[in-house]
């Protein structure tokens, strides 16, 4: 099981800025190991963000996103106390969902 996703959501001027840090290797599929064999790609392929249970953003990522991916976006009309959850799924089928409260 992957490590927890770190999410921080801060309200400012009626919107909330959400910063997400996911723990993931994001292997590109380009690198080779010591034996010269290609290391297979292993990356987050789908990301979903929800505000109070309603999906507000989905993303599709290739292996070109950096290791331990960072994502920042703004949710309109989010107030302190609202719930923001972020889930991802990688190309091996692993998933992880984490939730935080807007402060």
């Amino acid at each position, binding site marked *: 099981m992957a490590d927890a996703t770190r999410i921080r959501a801060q309200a400012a001027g009626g*919107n909330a800025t959400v910063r997400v840090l996911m723990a993931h290797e*994001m292997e*590109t599929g*380009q*690198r*080779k190991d010591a034996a010269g064999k290609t290391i297979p790609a292993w990356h987050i*392929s*789908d990301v*979903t*963000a929800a*505000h109070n249970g*309603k*999906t*507000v*953003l*989905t*993303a*599709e*990522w*290739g*292996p*070109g*996103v*950096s*290791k331990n*991916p*960072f*994502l*920042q*976006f*703004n*949710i*309109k*009309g989010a107030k302190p106390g609202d719930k923001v959850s972020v889930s991802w*799924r990688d*190309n091996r089928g692993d998933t992880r969902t984490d939730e935080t409260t807007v402060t």
Partner: protein
Amino acid sequence: MQTRRETLRHSAIVAGWLAAAGLLPGPALAFNAKAFDAKSVADALKALGAAAPAESKDVTITGPDIADNGAVVPISASTTLAGVKQLLILVEKNPSALVAVFNLSDSVDANMSTRVKMGQSSDVYAVAVMNDGRALFAKKEVRVTLGGCGA
């Protein structure tokens, strides 16, 4: 008489439509493997079913002029226009150009920041796909001192 090239192009366009309509079989979440396999910016956009992109001042890309470490290049894509369906980030000279696709809703600003890998110095594109199918882009050259792909 259709050439092979035309056939391939048409199938890519149709695949894009099908994917957009959710008709393609496969995982419930719509990871568009074809678009992420595309080698060039034009192919990736085609695989997504977007029109030929036009440069626009209303789309903004922000990133460093020189990136010390190509494995972690902070890039922001944003637009001030209304009616944006998707924001894309593409790195022209990466092994596969398409890095990320963001499917926006009315509840989020069209302003996404993330970090990308870059194999070498290259133009980085931010593309905004509008609800009416137009694709608008902005590009920025980022110079990389140490590549982030390969060994």
